[in-house]
């Protein structure tokens, strides 16, 4: 009985499927996207968020666009730029991908840049945030953010809001130095004073001595950039040392209060003011829908890395629609330049000059919303370009 009913069911499905499908799959052209992100190692949360977001987008929008079937090939580079380069080469040569996407950290994005130029394959940067990246190849487009965007904005905000003396604590690598330099430039130009400057090693086990130095410098606020994963540890030690009670506020680019970790950081983080491009609490309809879908699919809230991935895949879809399915590098890049759309983070566009992202930057304060910690936006700077390049 069971066997037969199953057989009938299966036969029915096959018949229905063949009746519904307008053309057989083999005749349809496939556009392959190589997604290289760290899925293991210290930056794994970045890769997982991007992967989740891309999968979510494809569930929502289907895997066919402009008559092409989209196929994403996921590769894990474990944050090692050598791996990223090797994987990108394999994807371009063997798998014949039309687009390389992902890039968890700056060195990975830079390692792939020469390949993108040679093979004329667009490289969509969904996470890495150093300004120079898009200058390294005419085929690089970014959908994440640059540290200059958030660091200059928080500096301008601090000067206007009575913060005169600032001590800085930044991780000693390219994005950390970008954050520090852009902040310093704007803060000092606005009349602020840097009373203490500390760079912490990237693989830093213990913040205690650095935090004690911050405390003794007695600044109005401390400017902090640590890579997304270290924010939790930093905030715990900040509270343990009583810097919150000493009246020293934390300000910085939003990496330190990443939505991914914010929930578990404890109440010491309340009142932290950051400038960033995305908050899961962004009050737009598009974002509410995005957050709800992401939570439903993965049981946690999306962070800014997820949004970078979501917008990146959206950019690919929209560009393919515009080119009518033409997937060569030059057509795609031409289509992507100047493209504007409504992202969960707010209105964004791709600067036709630099191929970098132009977006609103928000000033947010950590508050409790329905018993959970969120970055609540309270001020907005419209359509911020990456100032790291505009000076040149």
């Amino acid at each position, binding site marked *: 009985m069971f066997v037969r009913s199953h057989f009938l069911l299966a036969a029915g499905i096959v018949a229905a499927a063949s009746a519904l499908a307008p053309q057989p799959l083999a005749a349809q052209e496939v556009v392959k996207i190589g997604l290289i992100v760290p899925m293991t190692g210290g930056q794994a949360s970045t890769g997982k968020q991007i992967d989740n977001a891309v999968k979510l987008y494809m569930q929502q929008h289907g895997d066919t666009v402009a008559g092409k079937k989209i196929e994403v090939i996921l590769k894990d580079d474990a944050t090692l730029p050598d791996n990223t380069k090797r994987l990108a080469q394999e994807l371009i040569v063997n798998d014949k991908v039309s687009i390389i996407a992902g890039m968890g950290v700056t060195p990975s994005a830079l390692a792939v840049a020469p390949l993108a130029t040679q093979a004329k394959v667009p490289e969509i940067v969904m996470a890495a945030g150093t300004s120079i990246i898009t200058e390294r190849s005419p085929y690089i487009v970014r959908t994440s953010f640059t540290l200059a965007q958030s660091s200059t904005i928080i500096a301008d905000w601090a000067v206007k809001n009575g913060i005169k003396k600032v001590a800085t604590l930044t991780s000693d690598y390219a994005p950390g130095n970008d954050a520090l330099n852009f902040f310093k430039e704007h803060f000092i130009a606005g009349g602020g004073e840097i009373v203490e400057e500390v760079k912490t090693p990237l693989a830093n*086990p213990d913040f205690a*001595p*650095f935090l004690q130095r911050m405390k003794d410098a007695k600044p109005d606020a401390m400017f902090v950039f640590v890579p997304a994963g270290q924010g*939790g*540890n930093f905030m715990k*030690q900040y*509270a343990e040392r*009583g810097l919150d009670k000493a009246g020293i506020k934390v300000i910085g680019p939003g990496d330190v209060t990443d939505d991914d970790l914010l929930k578990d950081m404890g109440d010491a983080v309340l009142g932290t003011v950051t400038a960033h491009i995305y908050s899961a609490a962004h009050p737009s309809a598009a974002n509410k829908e995005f957050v709800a879908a992401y939570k439903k699919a993965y049981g946690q809230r999306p962070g800014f890395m997820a949004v970078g991935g979501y917008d990146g895949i959206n950019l690919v879809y929209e560009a393919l629609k515009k080119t009518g399915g033409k997937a060569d590098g030059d057509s795609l890049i031409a289509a992507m330049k100047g493209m504007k759309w409504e992202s969960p983070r707010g209105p964004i566009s791709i600067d036709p000059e630099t191929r970098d992202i132009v977006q609103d930057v928000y000033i947010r304060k950590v508050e409790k919303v329905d018993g959970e910690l969120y970055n609540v936006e309270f001020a907005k700077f419209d359509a911020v370009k990456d100032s790291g390049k505009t000076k040149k």
Partner: protein
Amino acid sequence: MTIVAQGLLASMTSILTILFDGVAYGMLLFVLACGLAVTLGLMNFVNLAHGAFAMAGGYICAVLVNQHGWPFFAALPLAFVGSSLIGAALERLLYRHLYTRSHLDQVLFSIGLVFMSVAAVDYIMGSSRVFIQLPSVLEGQLDVFGVGVGRYRLMIIVICGLLTALLQLVLARTRFGSRLRAAVDDPRAASGLGINVPQVFAFTFAFGCGLAGLGGALSAEILGLDPYFPLKFMIYFLIVVTVGGSSSITGPFLASLLLGIGDVTGKYYVPKMGPFVIYTIMIVILIWRPNGLFGRTAAR
């Protein structure tokens, strides 16, 4: 006058705070590394996988506290017991076959074990950093005459201080301690006298692993706990043992304190040089005393 005095007082209190943090960090290093001092120094076995046992302890504690709602202080002994059981099992199954092999074999074997443990924990627990939920008693700082004393670090100093005293007592005063010392000094003569040398070693190994597990659980708050823990801190453990020498536990203890205080004060006073201070101390000491502070030159 008063301003100068105040300034002096302020710098005094911050010196004391830094010293306190350094001692806490050093104590933590000692509990993490003293098991390695025993296996490397006393049993002459190069066990680079020592950090894996520390990580095991940390994750046992994290799972018990965060997922099963155990109180932190009840989970700590379990971290010790769990790691020492894992240690004992691995000693019987794997390590014991390598006691007589060359150091290169031991290094290759134990580093392989490290990579397996990293991959296993990454697979089971995920790669993001784990925090252990602490009771509120342990959060924040106490103010002792203006000197900021972190409650958690104070607890570390108390626990580790007691442990050290206990270890020294066991090694110097008990029958087991004298058996261990005999087995280390001359295994053949010791077994001739009826001491069950393999058993003594197995027990010691397991105990060392247990201590590492306890250290791992305690360090989650300060050093951070993720699957790469054994690789990240392997260097620190080795520094403690090489600088301290391996003839007793006093050497590694003093070395841990020295490195802890050196590291913290270095990062405080010369933050640009921060990460190098610990290595500079090591190089200077090893040039001065190549066998470590308390090394035995004649024995090997």
